[in-house]
């Protein structure tokens, strides 16, 4: 059987997780210029919390909800308590502070959940394969693709069509002016940061059934998310979406056809973008 359709589906399901992971990062980075290294910890902890809730309740939906809600809270706390004090130009302190948080979160997770790869079983309804014409593909991954697409549409509408989104876009383009015309930027920042963390936590739990959750996962996904931001450009949901597709495609294709080079897959799209369009495909922030 031809492996290409399967590879493309694999790329698509990875792309959806990548998108959920990096959409929040792209917005917070574009809006506030906060480069939050601990964003990857939200993904990791989202996975672990999803697992913990599932193992007690055996309820997959509840596991997703708990992962999302707890990470929204964690993100709000991280921003409100630690990050709100820094100005936009303080990228070095922010990065180092959040890197410290990443180290702490990773070690804490290691202490609580140990060093093995853990997997969250998908709900019974989504287990097993599905027939898609000539292709047989795991049902759960199709669910992830559908969920990712739905979230992409929802986030795109939220940013592009709602009042909140208009405020966010104004903040991305020019924070000072937005502030001057009376928008409450600190509150908006807190809200957006919490939302981005929520989606990252959700992505962690959604990915747990097939990528697993393990120590070091946080840094693995962080690098991919950074590649997405560089390629897609900061501050744009659509940019993050397109870039997630490209990065996931490059990653999956190299892993399938040239596994020796799988660690280098992200550098080709990254270098090309930087050579020809340094702001990223759809980057808003200058």
């Amino acid at each position, binding site marked *: 059987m031809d492996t290409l359709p399967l590879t493309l589906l694999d790329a698509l399901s990875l792309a959806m997780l990548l998108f959920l992971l990096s959409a929040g990062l792209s917005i917070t980075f574009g809006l506030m210029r906060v480069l939050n290294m601990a964003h990857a910890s939200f993904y990791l902890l989202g996975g672990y919390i999803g697992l913990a809730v599932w193992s007690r309740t055996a309820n997959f939906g509840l596991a997703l909800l708990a992962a999302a809600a707890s990470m929204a809270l964690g993100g709000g706390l991280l921003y409100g308590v630690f990050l709100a004090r820094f100005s936009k130009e303080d990228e070095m302190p922010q990065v*180092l502070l959040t890197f410290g948080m990443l180290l702490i979160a990773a070690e804490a997770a290691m202490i609580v959940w140990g060093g093995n790869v853990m997997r969250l079983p998908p709900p019974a309804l989504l287990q097993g394969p599905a027939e898609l014409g000539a292709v047989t593909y795991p049902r759960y991954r199709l669910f992830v693709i559908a969920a990712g697409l739905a979230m992409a549409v929802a986030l795109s509408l939220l940013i592009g069509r709602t009042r909140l989104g208009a405020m966010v876009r104004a903040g991305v383009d020019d924070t000072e002016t937005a502030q001057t015309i009376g928008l409450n930027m600190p509150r908006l920042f807190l809200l957006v940061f919490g939302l981005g963390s929520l989606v990252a936590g959700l992505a962690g739990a959604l990915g747990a059934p097939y990528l697993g959750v393990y120590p070091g996962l946080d840094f693995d996904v962080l690098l991919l998310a950074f590649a997405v931001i560089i390629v897609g450009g900061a501050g744009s949901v659509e940019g993050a979406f397109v870039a997630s597709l490209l990065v996931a495609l490059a990653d999956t294709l190299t892993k399938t056809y040239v596994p020796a080079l799988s660690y280098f897959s992200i550098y080709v799209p990254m270098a090309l973008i930087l050579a020809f369009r340094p702001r990223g495909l759809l980057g808003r922030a200058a």
Partner: protein
Amino acid sequence: MTRPLAAAAAGLTLAALLPFAVPAYFVDILSRVLVFAMLAMGLNLLAGYAGLPSLGQAAFMATGAYTAALLIRKLEVGFAAASLAGVLLAAAVGAVFGLIALRARGATFLLITLALAQSVWAVAFTWRSLTRGDDGLGSIPRPELGWLPWPMADARAYYFLVLIVFLALLAAFAVLVRSPFGLALQGIRDNEQRMRSLGYNTWLYLYTAFIIAAGYAGVAGVLRAYLVGAVVPGWSQVDPSAEALLMVIMGGPGTVIGPLVGAAIIEPVAEMANLFTRHWPLVLGALYVVVILGAPEGIVGWLRRRLPARASRPAASERPSEGLAAAAPGEAI
């Protein structure tokens, strides 16, 4: 004697006497402090003077270390040539990465340097036939300088070799940042647009600084390889890069001596945490948080603001009220 001279004399005396006051194991930690201070010094040229926060500096350290180690172990090249090649290749990798990374500034620059550094890790990790992958390269001998009576296997003798190299790099750095080149870098940091309109080729200045910083990291890597006797792919990962940036911030970005101050505090703390608890990342992580919240302007910057101004610092004496306000009590470190 002026204060800077007195401080330098005191520092030198301390650096010369300290290794005789502690056991050999701690002498190796002192050497480590100097090695990381060299890495952070190069990074300070970027992050502190040129306004380019890099989070991939360790990649050049690893490049220097691997190059020297491979040349010595596989080709039996002499120490001087192997060390020089390590530094040059680190600078050459810097020249390539600089082309890519300098397409961006600020936080995006930081993101790109991190990603690029990870590619050096990937090379070291996957090219098993050359680098032995995750096992790393071991049994790297220390340089033997025949004309010296002390063998470098002795921790103190090697410490003094590292110290001499460090002092040379420090002196070069002090000259560099006061030169027209260094002043132009600081101008670019403060306002790149203006420097460009003044006719400076700002890109070339930043690119040169990037390569010099990579060279400093290369020196640190070569000396670290001899110090430890081994090199592993982890040397190019984000952890040492972030540690170096923390040293710069903690000591005081844009100060000549700041990175050494940062390294002298962070390295021993990290080493002790490693010795006493299995969960040392918790200690290290907390250290990041405490340093960033506690000393946002760096220790050297803080000291400068606190010490009473002298006539040699016109900016402070012109506005005594500011000096008073700065010395007001209630400042938390």
